[in-house]
């Protein structure tokens, strides 16, 4: 796999192969072991031998990492009982072994076909993430695909120490189609891709501070972003959370009445929105002049 391939077009296994040091990936519960969903056959839906999640250990820049990558092509990368248990198990292993945990996210959230089982699984994975954070083991979410991180998976990524996004990635809870149904096409036209990405895409999330890094759409850029974060963690402290509270409060006060993303962009210092929309990740980061904490 050449590092010049577009990250958002790669499959989960291609992403892992192109991120880690060659030949170092060792998969846990690989497809030949056939750990699969017990629910989907009851609904006449095809199963996948890995239940849509690839997990394992590898080295990245010579350092050990635990990695998970979601398979968006399989039921939208959604989290069912098995997918969720694999994810939680991996994160718990990271906490136990004090090895950084990287989640390559591509998921619409809970797998509806598995209902509450998937929902509880996400909650368990969140608990495992905070177990890592309590032990200062870095947890890093990479959101670089069109499917992005939605529903419970969107919330889960906000529990991690760090989020790396590309401009293709999206982060949110309710997706555009659900919001369009709820609010009407006038308020949110889900087929308007520019609006969808300005609402939830990587550039907007980087600008408001919900993504810590904006990487280019290639595995090399994503890998070097991960490398810069591997030695860092963000332990929870009262002072840190109070400061975050203030940031979120002033964001709501400043922009709570705005529904226009262009106003948000200009309010955050982007003078030329069309130019910034077309800018590469590197150019955008320079334009954004965000104070990195």
């Amino acid at each position: 796999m050449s590092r010049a391939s577009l990250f958002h077009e790669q499959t989960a296994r291609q992403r892992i192969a192109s991120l880690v040091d060659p030949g170092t990936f060792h998969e846990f519960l690989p497809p030949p072991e056939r750990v699969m969903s017990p629910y989907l056959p009851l609904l006449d839906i095809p199963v996948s031998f890995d239940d849509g999640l690839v997990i394992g250990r590898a080295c990245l820049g010579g350092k050990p990492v635990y990695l998970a990558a979601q398979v968006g092509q399989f039921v939208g990368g959604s989290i069912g009982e098995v997918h969720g248990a694999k994810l939680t198990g991996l994160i718990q292993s990271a906490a136990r072994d004090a090895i950084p945990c990287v989640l390559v996210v591509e998921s619409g959230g809970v797998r509806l076909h598995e209902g509450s089982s998937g929902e509880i699984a996400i909650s368990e994975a969140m608990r495992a993430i905070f177990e890592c954070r309590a032990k200062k083991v870095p947890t890093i979410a990479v959101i670089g695909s069109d499917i992005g991180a939605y529903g419970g998976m969107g919330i889960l990524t906000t529990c991690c120490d760090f989020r790396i996004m590309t401009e293709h990635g999206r982060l949110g809870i309710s997706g555009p189609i659900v919001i369009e149904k709820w609010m009407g096409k006038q308020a949110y036209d889900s087929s308007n891709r520019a609006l969808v990405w300005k609402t939830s895409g990587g550039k907007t999330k980087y600008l408001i501070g919900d993504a810590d890094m904006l990487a280019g759409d290639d595995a090399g850029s994503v890998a070097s972003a991960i490398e810069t974060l591997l030695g860092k963690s963000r332990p929870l402290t009262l002072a840190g959370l109070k400061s975050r509270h203030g940031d979120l409060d002033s964001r709501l006060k400043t922009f709570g009445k705005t529904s226009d993303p262009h106003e948000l962009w200009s309010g955050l210092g982007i003078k030329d929105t069309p130019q910034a929309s077309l800018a590469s990740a590197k150019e955008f980061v320079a334009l954004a002049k965000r104070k990195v904490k």
Partner: protein
Amino acid sequence: MKTPALLQKFFGKSATGITVKDSLLTGYARVGAQEVCVIGTCDGTYINNAAALRLAGHILDCIENRPKLPIVMLVDSAGQEPNRTAEMLGLASYFGHLLSCLQLARQNGHKLVTVATGKAIGGAFLCYGMFGDRIDALDSASLGLMPIEAMSAVTKIPAPVLEKLSRTMPSLEFGAKPFSLLGGVEEVWSKTDDYAAKLAQAIAAASPADNRAALGKKRGGRKLAL
């Protein structure tokens, strides 16, 4: 049951220490002799950015000013608000902030006890109540990912098919009992129970270890999570 009457059943006279505003609950009250911090939702309200921030603010106040006080979370919320502006401003991050505040409380020795009193659905349950050390529910509460009609609309699987499956699959059925079979709820309370006594027991029994996968396996509702 109306909110004031429900709070009375949990906290007796001390329920006056809980502010009810915009269907959000924040305050301090007593369970028997034990002082507790309370956050919650009522009226099946939708949680938005401001709501999550308000609940988080109260948790920070408790951590700072009332060390180690148990935190009681009451849940009656139909979900997160599907709204474009809310999404643009990072609703997920507001939820993540609320969870982070609860985690700091846990690390600082506060017990986290949840009672699902009404609707406890999707992201609204995930963003605080499901994060408890101990999670109980009233038998009348509606717990689950989403109602069968909504699930049918999104998955394109006919509602009668899902309805039939839900009778043997607790993860598709809505309610406190099926959720407890999956391990997501420790104990289901009946309406004749003494809520204050039950809550006191729940606080005493709460432990920070996540036992839900083990519970789901033991009860047979979620066999593969462990």
